[in-house]
């Protein structure tokens, strides 16, 4: 078998669809064959380089040269100049600034570093079930440092100075939260890890627990030291069996190594952790509901204040942070508050993990510095929209976030900017929509989720969201009126204004943000009875193109409600009064005569 002296890496045509990398790849292959180089040099397709605007990208190994915006016509030059003559094709190198970055990083094979992995630093690198590998990656050094070198207040000050804010959605300053819990006097306190990741589409907490459970354990112990708690509880959903298993293994190992238990690092500090299982209710991610669930009560929120920091689990002061927040802590201790605070924006420090989903090429987990723009996330890291379609909206913040449009693409992502734009950070779900998505249906979809997940305690959330859903349903069926749109807005605003907990206070966001950003689509549904995305079946009708119809009767025979009539070998006709819009006729027609309008 041939042993190649060179590799040409070309980003995959299926992801970089719009940039024709497939043709580039073929052209390179052809050129190589033309020059009898096919046994010396191999063309390999790769995943996304994360710099799609500059695609297609060709990378030459082993010399690590990177060519951008390569066209099929450039193939010959690359082969002749670079491979045969050993001369770099300068005009295809990245722009000056990018080239500088590239040069400064020297050895690293790829130049674009939009992502920085802090919370995810060990995910996908270490064996999560091997504590020694975690220790080999500087694990438990932060705990050691805290226990042996710092007072609790000093640690709290470090966290405060770092600017870390809660990654579960609220964005409350973490250090301040710790300080409040630390200051409350009590015989017993608790450290609680909120691992009830409820946003559909978000799975960063799961991935951290599966990939780096010790980072959470270490951070919880640090928090226990700061707040004066010797008991940690992880509230984890039972639907995360692997995360549960790995956490259990990690806790056992930490105990075995003396990193949990009595007198940790000879400091006199005792700390241990237990797991509590959630049954998967979305609202149990709300901290008071979470605590009630742990206490064996109905998982529903109670009015704050008192906050859990003062009156938490079993009435004792409890510090509640989520998984991702904790995962940042050991790094902050090890690398310092200033280092962490140097990343991100003025009010949102550090990085944030996002789960990219929807109509985006690179579905997955990413972690970017706060302040990265939506555009960078979606187009540079996410690889752009699937199938080269038009970007329409991105929904951030989980089911109760808002839908942002192309106007927001250059907004730097941080807590405050997202709220100002009518959405929120949430736990970091990011769902991308394209031109095929009907925004009314999207709003209805999210409302369907909150209707299901509302605990039912307060009237606006329990009944209001249901009514919102019903009105949206009516609109998608073509039965909406302009008055309904007024109702939608009033109801949404009242639900936000009057609901008891964060769920109801944010659940109308998808409605309000789509009303704001896609008003004309609502009006089209109501006035023109038209769904531009073609997804609202109630607004579509099937018709038969008389010219294309051959009168084969296949559609008429298949129609479950006998809505189709017509003579054999003559054009057929669909009675719209009877048609239930099931689409069977369209499926059965061999002549593409059935059209959806």
């Amino acid at each position, binding site marked *: 078998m041939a042993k190649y002296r060179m590799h040409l890496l070309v980003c995959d045509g299926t992801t970089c669809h719009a940039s024709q990398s497939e043709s580039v790849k073929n052209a390179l292959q052809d050129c190589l064959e033309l020059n009898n180089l096919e046994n010396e040099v191999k063309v390999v397709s790769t995943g996304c380089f994360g710099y799609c605007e500059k695609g297609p990208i060709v990378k030459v190994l082993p010399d690590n040269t990177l060519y951008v915006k390569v066209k099929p016509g450039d193939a010959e030059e690359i082969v002749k100049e670079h491979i045969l003559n050993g001369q770099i094709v300068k005009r295809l190198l990245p722009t000056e600034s990018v080239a500088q970055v590239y040069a400064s990083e020297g050895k690293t094979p790829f130049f674009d570093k939009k992502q920085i992995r802090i919370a995810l630093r060990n*995910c996908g690198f*270490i064996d999560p079930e091997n504590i020694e590998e975690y220790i080999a990656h500087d694990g438990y050094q932060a705990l050691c440092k805290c226990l042996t070198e710092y007072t609790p207040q000093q640690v709290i000050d470090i966290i405060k100075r770092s600017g870390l804010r809660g990654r579960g959605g609220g964005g409350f300053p973490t250090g301040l939260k710790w300080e409040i819990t630390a200051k409350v006097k009590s015989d017993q306190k608790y450290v609680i890890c909120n691992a009830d990741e409820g946003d559909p589409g978000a799975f960063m907490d799961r991935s951290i627990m599966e990939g780096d459970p010790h980072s959470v354990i270490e951070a919880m112990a640090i928090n226990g030291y700061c707040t004066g708690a010797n008991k940690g509880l992880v509230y984890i959903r039972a639907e995360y069996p692997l995360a549960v298993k790995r956490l259990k293994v990690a806790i056992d190992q930490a105990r075995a190594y003396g990193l949990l238990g009595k007198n940790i690092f000879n400091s006199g500090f005792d700390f241990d952790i237990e797991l509590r299982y959630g049954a998967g209710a979305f609202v149990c991610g709300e901290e008071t509901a979470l605590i009630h669930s742990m206490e064996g009560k109905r998982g529903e929120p109670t009015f704050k204040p008192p906050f859990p920091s003062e009156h938490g689990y079993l009435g004792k002061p409890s510090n509640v942070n989520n998984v991702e927040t904790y995962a940042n802590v050991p790094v902050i201790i090890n690398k310092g508050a200033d280092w962490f605070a140097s990343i991100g924006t003025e009010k949102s420090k550090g990085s944030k993990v996002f789960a990219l989903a929807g109509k985006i090429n690179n579905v997955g987990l990413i972690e970017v510095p706060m302040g990265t723009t939506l555009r960078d996330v979606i187009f540079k890291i996410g690889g752009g929209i699937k199938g080269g379609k038009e970007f329409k909206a991105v929904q951030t913040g989980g089911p109760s976030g808002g839908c942002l449009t192309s106007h927001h693409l250059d907004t730097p992502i941080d807590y405050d900017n997202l709220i100002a734009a009518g959405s929120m950070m949430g736990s970091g779900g990011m769902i991308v929509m394209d031109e095929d998505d009907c925004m009314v249906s999207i709003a209805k979809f999210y409302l369907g989720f909150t209707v299901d997940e509302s605990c039912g305690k307060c009237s606006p959330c329990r009944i209001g969201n249901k009514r919102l859903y019903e009105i949206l349903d009516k609109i998608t069926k073509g039965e909406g009126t302009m008055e309904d749109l007024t109702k939608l807005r009033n109801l949404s605003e009242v639900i936000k204004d009057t609901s008891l907990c964060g769920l109801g206070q944010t659940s109308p966001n998808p409605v309000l943000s789509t009303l704001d950003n896609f008003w004309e689509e609502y009006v089209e549904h109501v006035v023109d009875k038209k769904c531009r995305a073609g997804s609202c079946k109630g607004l579509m009708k099937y018709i038969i193109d008389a010219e294309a119809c051959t009168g084969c009767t296949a559609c008429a025979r298949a129609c479950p409600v006998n809505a189709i009539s017509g003579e054999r070998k003559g054009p057929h006709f669909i009675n719209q009064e009877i048609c239930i819009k099931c689409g069977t006729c369209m499926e059965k027609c061999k002549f593409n005569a059935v059209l959806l309008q």
Partner: protein
Amino acid sequence: MVHVKTIEDLKKIKEEFGKRIQVSGKNFDPEKVVQIKVGLGTSGIASGAKEVMNFLRDELEKRNIEALVTQTGDMGYSYAEPTIEVKLPGQPAVVFGKVNIKKADEIIERYIKNGELIDGILPTNYMTI
């Protein structure tokens, strides 16, 4: 097993860990052995990573290749699961996506044995700390 009590204990574990890799009683020199990490997060497992891992372990042994196959968490490339990272001695690690049994076989035969890159490499596009 050590009962960790000081920073020195941690450092010792860290140093030792880099020097030796032990799998089922055998000592490996990390500089001479092929190291493979399989992304065994829920997304990976759901798309068949466990089967791939078993295949790699069995086949590498059968084909007499000194290799260490370990599990790791989610690498983040959900669109390309299962993902594996292969590090040949003295070379930078390469991540392959959408690895099924067929692909795993190809990776052994062409990349591990011959150093020949194959389709489906996932470029690392992030900095880590």
